[in-house]
């Protein structure tokens, strides 16, 4: 019997992607080159010509990287705990991971206002431990923002790691132990290479989510910590300069895209693949 082609089943998805993703993206890119006298690179020149804009771009990339590091340090132990745990512990961990995702990003952001505030638990704890004699507010600081972003984006790295570890036989660690490897060595030479695809997926998701998280950046970062989404919002909503806003959006898209390509290339590195 001739094998039936699966293409017709892909057509609706292709049409949807073209209509609702590729076309708006093309319009956005086209708009970023639109000037009074036809096509122009003027908006990109304006963006990169202003040191402030460049600093905002660097701030956004730094925030993304800091959050990726934070979520990685928190996510790996939780994923390993899931892997080691029994059925009940796994259910509890999945529940605790998914529940925050079911609440709005806005709600979680406003909860962090309370946590990071002058009268919040962090300030109270620091005073109770005698580290500071007066209330401390982490609002409008990059540290406070990174803490909030780590909690908000943590599920994005835990879930891919859990997916990878679920397919990993537990006997691998036992084999490594029998061969004389200690816990750290097992983690570094056996588990981390195996977890790498999940880590890469998580890093991409966390970086993209953090660098475009307008509400959290605006509310917790305040106006002193300016990131690219706020810049785009300002150009569109306040200054009505859409071509420049489109150019900024394209720059954000390209910078995230570059990171994605770099991570993909790393994940295909022969030595890493060899390890895994």
């Amino acid at each position: 019997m001739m094998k039936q082609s699966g293409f017709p089943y892909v057509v609706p998805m292709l049409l949807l992607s073209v209509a609702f993703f590729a076309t708006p993206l093309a319009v956005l890119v086209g708009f970023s080159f639109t000037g009074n006298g036809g096509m122009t690179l003027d908006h990109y020149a304006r963006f990169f010509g202003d040191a402030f804009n460049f600093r905002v771009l660097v701030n956004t990339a730094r925030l993304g990287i800091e959050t990726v590091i934070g979520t990685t340090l928190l996510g790996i132990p939780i994923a390993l705990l899931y892997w080691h745990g029994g059925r009940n512990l796994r259910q509890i961990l999945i529940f605790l991971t998914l529940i925050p995702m079911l609440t709005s990003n806005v709600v979680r952001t406003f909860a962090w206002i309370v946590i990071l505030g002058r009268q919040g638990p962090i300030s109270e704890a620091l005073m109770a431990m005698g580290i500071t004699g007066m209330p401390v507010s982490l609002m409008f600081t990059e540290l406070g923002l990174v803490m909030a972003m780590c909690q908000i984006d943590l599920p994005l790295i835990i879930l891919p790691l859990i997916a990878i570890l679920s397919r990993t036989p537990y006997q691998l660690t036992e084999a490594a132990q029998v061969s004389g490897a200690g816990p750290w060595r097992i983690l570094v030479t056996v588990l981390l290479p195996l977890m790498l695809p999940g880590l890469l997926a998580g890093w991409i998701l966390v970086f993209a989510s953090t660098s475009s998280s307008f509400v959290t950046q605006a509310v917790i970062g305040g106006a002193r910590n300016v990131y690219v989404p706020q810049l785009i919002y300002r150009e569109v909503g306040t200054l009505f300069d859409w071509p420049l806003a489109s150019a900024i959006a394209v720059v954000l898209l390209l910078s995230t895209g570059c990171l994605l390509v770099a991570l993909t290339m790393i994940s295909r590195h022969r030595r890493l693949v060899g390890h895994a």
Partner: protein
Amino acid sequence: MKDVEISRRRFGYLMAGVAASTMLPFPLRAASAATGGSAVAATFPGNWEDAYRNVLTPVLKKQGFDLTIAPAMAQDQLAKIMASPGNPPYDTLLMSPGQMTIAVENDLIQKIDPSRLKNWSLLDPSFQGVYGPTVTVEVNGIAYNPDLVPRPKGYRDLFENPAYKGLVSWTGFASNTAVMAYTEIAKIYGKGPADMAAVFKLFKEHPEQLKGVVDSTNHQMTLFQQGEIAVFMCSTSNVARLKSLGLNAEFVHPETGSPAAPVNIHLTKGSKNLDAAYAYMDAAISQSAQQQLEQPPTEMFPTNKNVALTPAISAYVTREQLKTLVYPDWAEINKNRDDWIRQFDTLVAG
């Protein structure tokens, strides 16, 4: 357990069924729509949105119209109607003269026909704009928390009295409330209301003031609730809202004068629901609606002559005092605003 098997054809039927069911709400909604049509009215988020939805929607429903209250700041309303000329997302807009000037320049709003408003004659002539009625006058000043700071006399106090150090919050020039405060500060420290160089210099000399700069008055309300800030630039209705939440908040008229801004409803150019839009405008300036809207937690100043001021509103401002308030030159502000926004944002970001 028996495995569930599904053929491609059945899967296709299933998907078609799902697609059809997702389309079902549209005809149902059309069938249940009000007989007189519907209007989408842009309203400021928060206090305004709640009040207009609760007070005006039932009034229009009785007349056979559907009213959708869509929350958006005035500047966002402009951005959205500029984004879709000819097919505006709102039938009416709510804005102050600053944004109205831009809307007129860009041909986004149209002159209204007063004969379609039964309550038009009940407005003072100064509230009968050719582009729409004034529904209230926002009186601006300083909000403060008496538990945390002493009562400020005016703007100068906030910069020169150490009691306020680190407890004052400001917003950028995109906010009308902020821009009115900055023009007043420019009068105090500079050569006149447009001398923003003096204001920027003042902020540079007081870097502690820059720490509390946030994006909007709504954020400030949240921070005020949490005790993160003790002072911010506000309207009387902001303070009324905070008081309604049980917070200790007071309003101060700055010693140099209170800036004020009329708030108007405008008819969007290209609105396809004129009957419903006019019904909404008329309801907003009616005696019964304005009597409800001048009560806490909104405490909006009534522009309908037949509505007596409540003691709470009279404490802020009387009808006679309206003329003595400071009305900024919005044409001058709009000329410089983009530049001020960029300069201030750069200054704040350090």
